[in-house]
C-alpha cells in the first residue's frame, strides 16, 4: 500500500507532468512506484492516443475548424481526456515558449497543426524541434519569414529565434541576427489558397532555393554558406542554449520564476537546479526526454509542491478532471476553451511572442473572481461523478466529525496542502454545522449538501490557486 506521502508525491508529479488526476487513479499509479510512473509519462507513445477519427465524427466541427474557439476546444478535449498527459503538457510548454498567436496568423487550425507538431517532436531532440519550428507555416507567417528574401532580409524570425526561442538576450550580436535571417531566406509558405469564398485552408512549408541567400555568412563564430539547419546546429551547441531552456523548463515544471525579459539581470531562484538541467542537456545532446527524466526525479522537483500558480488551463483542466464532468465525447468543450480565455489564457492566441506572463501575473481581481467561481461551481456540484465520489468517501468514514470531513475533502482534492489560516477557517466553517449524520434521507441530503459546500469553499481558497 502506498503511503500518504507517496500519493502526495504522485499527485504533484501528475499536476506538473499532466493536469492532475482523481484520487483513485493516483493510488493506482503510486502502486507502480514513482520512477516507473515518470518513465511511463516520458513515453506517451506507449499509451493509446486520442481516437481522432471518433472525435471528428462525433464533433464534426472540430476538423478543419473555422473559428478559434473550435480549435481551442479540440485542444481542451485532448487535455481533459488524454491518456498521454505529458504529451499535452509539453505541447503547452512549447506553445508558451514559442508563442504563436492567432491575433496575427488568423488561422486557428494552422496553429493547431503547430501544436500537433509539438506533440510529435516535443519530447525529442531540441535541435530537431527547432528545425520543425522553422518549417511551421504558422510560425513563418507569425514572424514574417515569408517576407525574408535573398537580398532583402526581414529579421523578425532571426531575432526572436535567438532572443526568445533559444539563447536569450546578451548571447548574440546584431550581426548574428542578420546572418540567421540570411540563412533562413527561402524558408517560406507555398502559395496559399485564398480564404474566400470557401474558408480557411492549411498552409504548407516550401523551401525556395532560388530565394535562398547562398553567400558566405558568419554566425556565432562559424563561417560558411550556412542554411537554416546549420544555424540550428550551431545554436544547440552554444552554452547559452541549455541554460536558457533549463530556465524555461524550471519555470514551467518546477516553480515560478520572473518573466523572461528580466532573466538577463535576475539570476535563477535555484541556480543548482539549473546546473543539473544544463548537465542533463549536455550529456544527452539536447534530448528533452532525458532532461525531463532528470527533472522529475530530482529532489528540487519533489520538494516544489504548490510552488507555482496554476495557469488557467491547469486550473480548468485539473478541476474538471477531478470532477469527472467532461469525460469522453460530449458537448461543451467550447465553453471550457472560452473560460480559459476569460481567465486570461486564450489558447492559440497568446498576447505576444513572449508568451503569457505567468506566476502571480495570472492573477488580477477579475481573473481571480473567475477562477474561484469556476472551481467552486464545478467542485460544489454533487451531480458530477468525481464530486459524488468524494462525498461517498466522506460518508464511508468510521467517524462523522467535522474534522474528518475536512481532512478527507482536502485529501481527495489533491492531497491539497493548505496554510494554517485556510485550515483554521475550513475547520471553523465545518464545526459550525456539527457532526455529519447519514441515517435518514433528510440527514443524508443535508450532509451531502454540507460536504459539497465545503468542497466549493476549498476550491475557492488561495491554496487551490497553486499547482
Amino acid at each position, binding site marked *: 500500500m502506498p503511503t500518504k506521502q507517496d500519493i502526495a508525491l504522485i499527485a504533484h508529479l501528475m499536476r506538473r507532468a499532466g493536469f492532475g488526476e482523481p484520487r483513485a487513479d493516483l493510488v493506482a499509479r503510486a502502486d507502480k512506484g514513482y520512477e516507473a510512473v515518470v518513465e511511463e509519462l516520458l513515453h506517451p507513445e506507449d499509451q493509446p492516443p486520442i481516437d481522432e477519427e471518433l472525435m471528428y465524427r462525433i464533433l464534426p466541427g472540430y476538423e478543419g475548424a473555422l473559428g478559434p474557439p473550435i480549435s481551442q476546444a479540440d485542444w481542451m478535449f485532448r487535455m481533459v481526456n488524454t491518456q498521454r498527459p505529458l504529451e499535452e503538457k509539453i505541447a503547452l510548454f512549447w506553445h508558451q515558449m514559442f508563442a504563436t498567436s492567432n*491575433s496575427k496568423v488568423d488561422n486557428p487550425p494552422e496553429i493547431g497543426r503547430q501544436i500537433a507538431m509539438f506533440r510529435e517532436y516535443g519530447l525529442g531532440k531540441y535541435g530537431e524541434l527547432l528545425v520543425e519550428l522553422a518549417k511551421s507555416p504558422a510560425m513563418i507567417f507569425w514572424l514574417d519569414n515569408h517576407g525574408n528574401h535573398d537580398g532583402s532580409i526581414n529579421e523578425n524570425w532571426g531575432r526572436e529565434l535567438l532572443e526568445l526561442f533559444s539563447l536569450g538576450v546578451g548571447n548574440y550580436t546584431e550581426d548574428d541576427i542578420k546572418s540567421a535571417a540570411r540563412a533562413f531566406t527561402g524558408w517560406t509558405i507555398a502559395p496559399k489558397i485564398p480564404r474566400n469564398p470557401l474558408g480557411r485552408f492549411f498552409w504548407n512549408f516550401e523551401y525556395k532555393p532560388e530565394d535562398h541567400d547562398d553567400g558566405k555568412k558568419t554566425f556565432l563564430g562559424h563561417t560558411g554558406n550556412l542554411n537554416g539547419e546549420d544555424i540550428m546546429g550551431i545554436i544547440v551547441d552554444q552554452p547559452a542554449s541549455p541554460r536558457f531552456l533549463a530556465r524555461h523548463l524550471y519555470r514551467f515544471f518546477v516553480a515560478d520564476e520572473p518573466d523572461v525579459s528580466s532573466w538577463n539581470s535576475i539570476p535563477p531562484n535555484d541556480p543548482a537546479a539549473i546546473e543539473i538541467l544544463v548537465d542533463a542537456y549536455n550529456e544527452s545532446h539536447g534530448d528533452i526526454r532525458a532532461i525531463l527524466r532528470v527533472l522529475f526525479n530530482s529532489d528540487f522537483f519533489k520538494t516544489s509542491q504548490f510552488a507555482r500558480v496554476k495557469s488557467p488551463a491547469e486550473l480548468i483542466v485539473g478541476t474538471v478532471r477531478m470532477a469527472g464532468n467532461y469525460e469522453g465525447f460530449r458537448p461543451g468543450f467550447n465553453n471550457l476553451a472560452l473560460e480559459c480565455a476569460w481567465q486570461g489564457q486564450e489558447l492559440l492566441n497568446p498576447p505576444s511572442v513572449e508568451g503569457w506572463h505567468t506566476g502571480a501575473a495570472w492573477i488580477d481581481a477579475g481573473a481571480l473572481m473567475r477562477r474561484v467561481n469556476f472551481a467552486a461551481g464545478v467542485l460544489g456540484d454533487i451531480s458530477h461523478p468525481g464530486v459524488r465520489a468524494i462525498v461517498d468517501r466522506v460518508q464511508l468514514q468510521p467517524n462523522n466529525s467535522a474534522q474528518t470531513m475536512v481532512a478527507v475533502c482536502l485529501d481527495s482534492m489533491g492531497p491539497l496542502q493548505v496554510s494554517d489560516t485556510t485550515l483554521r477557517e475550513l475547520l471553523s466553517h465545518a464545526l459550525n454545522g456539527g457532526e455529519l449524520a447519514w441515517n435518514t434521507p433528510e440527514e443524508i441530503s443535508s450532509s451531502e449538501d454540507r460536504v459539497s459546500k465545503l468542497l466549493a469553499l476549498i476550491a475557492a481558497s488561495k491554496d487551490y490557486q497553486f499547482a
Partner: protein
Amino acid sequence: MATTSQDPVLVILQLTGANDYLNTIVPYTNGYYWDARPKVNIPADQVVPIDDDLAFRSDMDQFKDIYDKGNMAIVHGVGFENSPRSHFRAMDIWHTCEPDKIGTDGWVAKIIRDLDPTGENVLKGVNFGQGLPRAMTMRGVPITSVNHLATYGVFSSVSGINSQDERTQLLDSFARMYSPAIGNGLTMEYIGQTGLDALRGADIIKIAPQQYSSTVEYGSTSIATSLKDVAQVHLAGLGTQVFYTSHGPFDTHFNQGGSHAKLWIDISEAVDSFFADLQEHNASENVVMMIFSEFGRRVRDNGTGTDHGAAGVAFVIGDRVKGGMYGAYPSLKPEDLTQGDLEPNYDFRGLYSTIVDKWMGLDAVPIVGGQFEQMSFV
C-alpha cells in the same frame, strides 16, 4: 436619487465582427452604391435621409432623433493604413494602438492608470462582458469585469446556496481565508489581497442595482441589459469613469439583411433607453459614448452578405457632443477602392486622441502612441 460627480465618463461600445458601414450610413443617392450592392442594400424607401447624400438605415430611427437633437457626431472613414482584413489583428490594433507590432497594453487601461495611478478605486474602469478586452489589460491596472450585474460576486456559480444566511457565511469564510497572514510568501499575500479586492469590488458594485430605480424600460436584448448595467453603476456614483461593453456578431458574410437590421434595431433602442435613463436622473451631462467596429465591410456584396473591408464609421454620442458629420465619406468610385474596399481617411487614433484629450482631459500622446489629427466634436 444618487448624485454623481461631474468627472467625465466614457462609455465604449464595441461592435464586434466588423459593421457594414455602407448599410449603416447609407450613400443612398450614390450610383456606385447601387452598382456594388445589387443584393445587400437598404432600399431607397427604407432609409431615413440625413442630407441629399447620406441616410441612416430606417431601423435606426432613434439614432436619427439623437442626431437631430445635435447630440451625435458621425465620424467618417475611420481606420488605419494597410488595414488587415483579420478581425483579430484589427481588433488588437484598435485595442493597443500598435499597428506595426504586437502590443500588449490596452489604451483604455492606460486611461485608467492616468486617472487613478495608485489603483485605489477598483471600479475606475468596469467592463461588462465575459473576460477582459485587451483594451483594458495592463499589468498593475485593476479593472472590474462583470458578466451580469444582478448575479456578480464570489460564489455566484455555486448552485444550491439556499439562503442569504448561507451565502453570507460562505463569503465571510472566503474573506477570512483571504485575510493577510504572515509567512506564507509574497505570491500568497498578493493573491490574498487580490481576493479581498475582488470581494470589495463586488460588495460595492452590488449597491448599484439595489438603489436603482427608473421609469425607463429597457428592452430584453443583451445590449439593453449591458447598457442598463452601465447606467446602474454610473447612477450609483461609484467613481467609474470608463465603461466598456460590446455587441455583435457583426460578421455578416451570409444572410446579412435580417441579422444586420436586428443588430441595429437592438442597439438604437438600447442606446436611446440608456440616455433617456441618464437624463431622467440628471446624470447624462458628463457622459460620452463612443461606438466603433474593427473595420467596415467590402463595397461589393457577395450575393447574400458582405466580406471583410477596411474603412468604417464611428459614433460619438452625448449631451455635450457637438453633433454633425465629421470627416468625409470615402469615395466609392471603383478606382478609389483598395482591394475593393473603402480606403480609410481618418486614423482611429485621432478619434481616440480627441476623446482622451478634449473629453477626459488627459495627455493623449502616451495613451495612443503619438500625435494624431483631432476633431472638434467635443
